[in-house]
């Protein structure tokens, strides 16, 4: 069984990964971690450096989550993409063809959460595989 988990650095993403492992541990799943770094809208040269800094910090985060999942006895693939989260998650599903994707849902309480909400809403309709939505 191959399970993809979309993580974005939020506590809920961590929870989604924990749930995935907790629920599916008996099936000895292969975990595919995917994180997507969105591109900055800043057009100045400075934005470039800061973007690199984010990407590095996200890389470390991905590494950390992958290590944790591996320490739970799972086979782990880790992917990092740059771009539109919806598109890139869809792309990741296409290339890795998991049986299930697990993502956290934060609810539309403020602007940023609405954006995230739109990622899960998009995936529910367009994922092309089963989707498990982890609530708060």
């Amino acid at each position: 069984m191959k399970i993809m988990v979309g993580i974005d650095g939020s506590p809920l993403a961590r929870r989604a990964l924990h749930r995935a492992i907790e629920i599916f541990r008996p099936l000895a799943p292969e975990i595919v971690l995917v994180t997507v770094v969105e591109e900055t809208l800043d057009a100045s040269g400075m934005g470039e450096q800061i973007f690199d800094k984010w990407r590095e910090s996200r890389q470390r985060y991905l590494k950390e989550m992958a290590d944790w999942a591996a320490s739970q006895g799972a086979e782990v693939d880790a992917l990092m993409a740059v771009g539109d989260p919806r598109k890139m998650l869809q792309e990741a599903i296409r290339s890795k063809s998991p049986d299930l994707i697990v993502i956290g849902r934060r609810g539309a309480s403020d602007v940023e959460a609405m954006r995230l909400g739109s990622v899960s809403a998009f995936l529910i309709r367009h994922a092309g595989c089963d989707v498990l939505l982890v609530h708060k």
Partner: protein
Amino acid sequence: MVNKKASGKKMAWGDLFDLRREDIRALYKTTAAFFLTFYVWFNMAPLVTTIVSVGGLTMAQLKLLAVCNVALTVPARIFIGMASDHFGPRRTFSALMVIMAVPALVFAFSTGYTEMLVSRLIMSMVGAGFVIGIHMTSLWFKPRDIGFAEGVEAGLGNWGSSIAAMTIPAATVVSSSLVGAEYGWRYGMALSAAVMMLYGVYYWFGITDGPVGSTFRKPRRAAAIEVSTWGDLGNAIVWTVPIMGVLALLAWRVHGMGFMNETALMVCYGLVALGVLYQMVQLLRVNVPILKRGVPEDDKYRFTEVAVLCAAYVVTFGAELGVVSMLPAFYQKTFALDPVKAGLVGGSFAFLNFFSRALGGYISDRVPSRKGALVVYLAGTAATFGLMGLITPAWPLPLAILVTLLCALFVTGGCGTTFALVPLVKRRVTGQVAGYAGAYGNVGATIFLTAYTFVSSQQFFFLIGAVALASFLFAVLAFREPAGAFAEEYHLSSVDRALEAGHAH
């Protein structure tokens, strides 16, 4: 955007009311500056009919003034952008506001047409305030908030043109009642220039380049855009020519109206040709070494995407600038409205900007395809300009206003969807992609307004509609939405971990 929770909350609408925050105050100060430059930039359109009747100008002369009003904005954006990098946005913005108040005052109290023409031409540089405002905002806000902060800054600032359309006629009525019709419009206009000048002085003392303690860093600025293939280099050259080339069109037009002799025209052509040549040399200088070395497959991007965004901005922002300059006069003539009412109706076009531009970006963020959002907006622009062209005096006024607002919704929203795609084309050259698209907005405005000197209002709307249709087709056929790419991939297994652990012990 990224690391939201880890590094605190992302800025939201509510934060805009938190005036205790220094960055929010800086945002408003800069927005006000941008607003004033736009206000002054567009302070003529609502008075066009008054100036004609009082000053005895022909309609053709007025149309030429409207063209001059957007002519030097493009080259000025380049030079003022450099100045802002060099001196910092605070000093540059202050200087721009104070200096540009002079031609504005000259225009207000001009005695002859040539004086008006020259002062308008110089004043067209005030439109470069946009670049400085964006620069200042980028110094104050963290990158994750910058899209929103600049949306607020650009949206509210762009209101300047519509607020000008709505308030200047009223101010003129008041001053006319005090000093007489012949001078009324002059004082209305002069007042806006004086306010801008005073604010320019205040801005010098009232803001810093970024939060106190942060150092003002000069951003990296390459001489020309990087491309990925030889074909794209040709493409880039072709798309660079009009940015300076529109000035030749303008010179030709001024010549055609008898304000410039053959020699002066040739000198102008020569200068424009030099400018174009300079940009080509820069493009070659930057790109030939890169292309000779070869661009790695995963680092390539298609210049066609830039071209489509340029074409889209021609019919969105370009059309907006063009229409804003003529709409009050159009309403006044078509529906026999007085200048105050015509100004109000005409101003409604740009008034929507703040909401609809943000809405365009918002929709682009939400729908599955940003390209889809763009093409729908372009189609809407084409269709609603077609409708605008059908407006006749027989139409009920509310219906005409409704069509105008619908058109404005698509046009300004189209700006939002265009700029929602700009940062996705190629990260490293985002600034330049934005520069290209932005410049094409002005190229469009100049071309449309030049065309306006030859055609009727109806034909003008149909023309924009036709160009919008062409942009729509170009976008549908040629644009490939950049989706992003996988940056990194690796595999960890429990076996690897066991081995690692084994080595560690």
